[in-house]
């Protein structure tokens, strides 16, 4: 297992270099000069040239990229063109809000998704199965900002049960978690149902029932555990996506997370922040994938990573 993890960590390096290189090329190719954007109309060409020089934007592109890469390797992502804040510090300040939102929405998603998925599979083709799968389809299709506004109107404005927006306590996370979580709950429910249906029909489940185990033990101990591999994969991918920020949910509920930081940086052409958030996002994704892969071996004893496998 250790050698597998080391191999995976080493294989991350070219991935990260590739991602930063593509980002660097993209931000330099798309229209929109960061200095022009910062300066407005009243500044003359000479001043713009001076500022480009001070920011190092007049150097050849490959020098700019290598400079970024070497500094990033030492943990220095530079400073924002706009507020001059250290990019690494900014990202680390925003990350807790994103983690809070991601985990709370995943709790909602996993709780609803697994429960609905299991019951639907056990009660296949019943009214419950059909109705929950239709609701799940609606959940996948409903835009998150729409769900968010409806939740704000009902539970925030009318019933006053939860804060409408903000980031000052766990109660602030309830509506954002539901808004974001229900979308993923629908995906998890559908995946759990189909995976469970496949497992339930296998021989070892028939054996378990034949030897007189209760239906509860059969479903939760034998079927569910074996049906979890694809579900965990889906959850892992979603957690990876969530940990990089949920722009719409963060904007509607006023949560100071990575999603808002990234979109503001893109709009402002704040190159150091764009590069920093992309690199951080890539790291989150590769680490999440690694954790998901490792978790397979805990769920399925047949999966082992030592001995050159993987």
């Amino acid at each position, binding site marked *: 297992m250790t050698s597998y993890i080391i191999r995976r960590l080493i294989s991350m390096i070219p991935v990260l270099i590739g991602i930063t290189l593509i980002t660097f090329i993209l931000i330099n190719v798309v229209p929109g000069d960061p200095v022009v954007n910062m300066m407005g109309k009243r500044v003359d060409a000479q001043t713009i040239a001076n500022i480009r020089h001070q920011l190092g934007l007049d150097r050849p592109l490959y020098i700019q990229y290598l400079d970024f890469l070497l500094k990033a390797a030492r943990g220095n992502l530079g400073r924002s063109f706009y507020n001059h804040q250290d990019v690494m510090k900014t990202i680390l300040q925003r990350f807790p809000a994103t983690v809070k939102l991601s985990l709370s929405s995943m*709790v909602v998603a996993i709780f609803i998704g697994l429960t609905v998925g299991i019951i639907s599979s056990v009660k296949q083709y019943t009214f419950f199965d059909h109705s929950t799968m239709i609701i799940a389809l609606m959940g996948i299709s409903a835009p998150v900002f729409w769900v968010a506004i409806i939740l704000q109107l009902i539970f925030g404005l009318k019933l006053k049960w939860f804060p409408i927006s903000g980031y000052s306590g766990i109660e602030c996370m309830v509506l954002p978690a539901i808004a974001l979580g229900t979308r993923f709950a629908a995906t998890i429910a559908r995946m759990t149902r189909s995976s469970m249906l496949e497992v339930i029909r296998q021989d070892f489940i028939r054996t378990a029932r034949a030897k007189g185990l209760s239906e509860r033990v059969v479903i939760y101990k034998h079927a569910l555990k074996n049906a979890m591999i694809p579900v965990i994969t889906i959850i892992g991918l979603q957690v990876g996506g969530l940990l990089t920020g949920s722009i719409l949910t963060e904007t509607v509920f006023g949560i100071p997370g990575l999603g808002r930081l990234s979109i503001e940086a893109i709009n402002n052409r704040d190159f150091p922040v764009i590069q920093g958030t992309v690199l951080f996002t890539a790291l989150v994704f590769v680490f999440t994938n690694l954790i998901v892969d490792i978790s397979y071996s805990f769920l399925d004893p047949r999966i082992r990573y030592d001995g050159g496998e993987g």
Partner: protein
Amino acid sequence: MSAKKFLAVVLIMLVVVSLAGCGGGQKAGQSQNQGQPADTKHGGTLQDALGGDPPGLDVQQNSMLETYYLARLLFSTLVRYKGGTTDLEPELLAEMPSVSSDGLTYHFKLKSDLKFSDGTPLTSKDVKFTFERMLKPETKAINQWVFEPIKGAKDMEDGKSTELAGFKVLNDQEFEITLESPYAPFIQNLAVPCASIYPAEATQKAGEEWTLNPIGSGPYKIAEWVHDDHITLERNANYFEKDLPYIDKIQMRIIEDEATMTMEFENGNIDILSIPDSEYPRLSSDPNFSKMIVENTPLNTYFYVMNENVKFFQDVRVRKAIAMAIDKDKILKELLNNRGIVAKGLLGPGIPGYNENNPGFPYDPEQAKKLLAEAGYPNGFEVENWQAKNETFYKRNVAIQAMLKQVGIDMKINQMDSASWRQSRNNGKVPIYLANWWADIPDPDNYMYNILHSSQTPQWSINYKNPKVDELIEKARVSTDMNERIKMYQEAEKIAIYDDVSIIPLFHIKEYYIVQPYVKDVQFHPTGIGSYNYRTMWLEKK
């Protein structure tokens, strides 16, 4: 790991992370007594909101609305507007400056015992430092224009000098400023938030961090700034106006979503709010909320730009046809709910030289068609409108698109991200678009020079050039006789707008705020930076 264990781990992680993140939250309603007299006006916390996190608080480096808004709370300027009017009065100055007969030299005297919020004294040296910092290339400032009329400013900007030749410190309280040539609105420039005075020592010590935690001499100071979440301001105990401000603390939440912000107001979590366009019809027709609405007339003009580098727009008849094809009254009524007036010139109400007798361009699509035919376009033409992504502007452009279609002009709307759009506009490449100007100062020069002078029109993608208009604007900005200046600006406006149709004035919009009934004596900054006068404002409910 079983499913139960997996869920348990996720739940535990959630609780730990949630508890860890709960430390920085606001404690609404707390108030601090900082030694001010106990009376009915003092005390309390104002719950305010900003539509975005300020990109920084260094007013020399950016002119975003949020930064200017906060600047009036954190810093002071040499002069300021009197209440909600456009009249100037001394702020840091003991009296209004005296000016030499040739209009070149100004003598200033600061109030005695001025202090920054950290307790250090504010002297003439701080004022000199502030002016010079703005002009030094390494500051990367964008608001040099306010100090550019001073002698030697250009040399500093070009890196040829490290000291401002036209600034002479006489003693700790007095200084003299000499201009390169007479410039009538100079004193107005000193009231703009970007002319706020910085403490020399603290600014240099803070370096790059200054923009995140500046120190000023305004009525408040920063207590906490959690980016994209909230900014808390507390009363500056060293503020030079004793017993002011009345309100102890201002809690500014950063809420980007307009609907969310409005719901927070409705729930009583925000005390004052600039009403978003989309929410105005609902709030103004609600019997309770309509009573809380306050009107403000800021200084602004919305206009249509036709790039004279584009073939069609080189013919004045085409430009005039477009001006007559746009039904401004209809846009104002249907899209702005009558929140404003139709513009008949570049200068709007509140600006000296505003001419309410200007004829305007009547809505006359038949005449517009005739003009197009005369210009050689009887069947119209195709043109692209470029705009930065913005729902409000898009709706207005769609309405104008439909009106232009009536006269045969097929205008496509191309929405771009703001950075790309700004670059195209500044490079003079945008063919036709909806523009606006919110005045920095209530002086006609601020509009006329910045929009219609040929040195400025390329950056607007207007690309208009008329030597007569340039000459009038240049003469008017150096004249010290206001009546003479007004005549010149009105003549320049007549030529540029009515003879040449360089731009099409559309409307001057009004702003509407909604204010909780317990917030008293609200006054707005006259230029439209959205800032309230916190010196007069107080809370009935603490």
